């Protein structure tokens, strides 16, 4: 069940094979939902669930899908899972669901899910595919949470809605929030910086 090979599938997307910084998949949502920590966390959780189960289901039926129409079959499976996630979010965390707005629907076209199905689940057994899905979802989540943490802390001075910087009394000594951190362009630059840090620590990832 948890052999060395399977564990590698699960943990390599956390770092050396990270979906966002190395495979460059699923960037749209990673940038758009990370202005605050809470939506970033909810999004990471939803994507992990959808990726894991979509990989599992496609892997179970992989021998019965004609390759010409496989994209439509994959999209139907993914869309059904996303509808489930959307309904659950609307029922239990309505405010976050409102903040995420169209980005819940856009999980369907999140390249991580399609990418992992095409690259892995179509050619492997269900259990490794499931682990691969969870691994990539969590790897995506790690980057989202790092981005959400810094953007919310530096941009709004809060964490998970709690006014951290105000309690620390930084505003009394003249600290001002950096409004640019909340705006869209800064998300791109932050991802660029994360890639820079990761690649200077791991020279194997540097592009020629």
């Amino acid at each position, binding site marked *: 069940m948890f052999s060395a090979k399977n564990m590698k599938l699960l943990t390599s997307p956390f770092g050396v094979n990270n979906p966002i910084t190395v495979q*460059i*998949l*699923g*960037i*749209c*949502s990673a*940038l*758009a939902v990370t202005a605050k920590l809470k939506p970033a966390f909810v999004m990471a959780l939803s994507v992990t669930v959808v990726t894991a189960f979509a990989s599992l289901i496609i892997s179970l039926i992989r021998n019965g899908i004609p390759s010409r*129409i496989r*994209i*439509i079959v994959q*999209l*139907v499976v993914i*869309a*059904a899972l*996303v*509808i489930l996630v*959307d*309904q659950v979010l609307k029922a239990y965390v309505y405010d976050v669901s409102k903040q995420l*707005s*169209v980005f819940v*629907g*856009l999980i*369907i*076209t*999140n*390249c991580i899910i*399609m990418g992992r199905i095409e690259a892995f689940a179509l050619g492997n057994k269900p259990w490794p595919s499931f682990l691969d899905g969870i691994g990539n979802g969590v790897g995506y989540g790690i980057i989202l949470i790092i981005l959400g943490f810094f953007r919310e802390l530096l941009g709004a001075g809060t964490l998970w809605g709690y006014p951290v910087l105000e309690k620390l009394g930084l505003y009394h000594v003249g600290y001002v929030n950096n409004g640019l951190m909340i*705006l*869209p*362009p*800064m*998300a*791109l*630059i932050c*991802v*660029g*910086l994360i*890639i*820079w840090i*990761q*690649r*200077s620590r791991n020279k194997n*990832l*540097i*592009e*020629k």
Partner: protein
Amino acid sequence: MENIISIFIKSIFIDNMVFAFFFGMCSFIAVSKSVKTAMGLGAAVTFVMVTTVPLNYLLNEYILSPGALGWINPAYGVGGAQEVDLSFLSFILFIAVIASFVQLVEMVVEKFAPALYNQLGIFLPLIAVNCAIMGGSLFMQERAYASAGEATAFAAGSGIGWWLAIILLAAIREKITYSNVPAPLKGVGITFILTGLMGIAFMTFMGIQL
């Protein structure tokens, strides 16, 4: 008419798909290495967007939104059709329309214009999973445009905005290959930072009132 023009201009510059909402980032980063391929992909995305958004608009208007089934005549023995709310089905129907449309376009192009088909290659099927297209349909639903004309203007504007953005980025990337970029930033890293800087430039359009 004025309304339609202002929606069109607004979705090209102010609500640009790439710089304001990050839609279609994956292919935006991956396919922007040369201006020529960027041009082909931009054209294909614009075409699929302009065709699928109005289709999904009609679906939303006459089948999905709450009370949309009111056109079914009660005389057919289907009572209470006005109260049905099928909006939870919109994701699956929208993506089905987009995926089947892309498949259809692929077959038609392959049959009647083989040269163009070879030029576009792998990009054609990949348009189905371009977030910009799905995002266009979802925004159309969320913003509730008043007519099919407005929805089409929005689709055309967003498509052209995306096209413009990918050509601009591809041109910059062609030039930057001659620059001395720090090794760990080469390729993807510097592309992200470039896109961010372009986004800041595009933010200057935000002050325009339409």
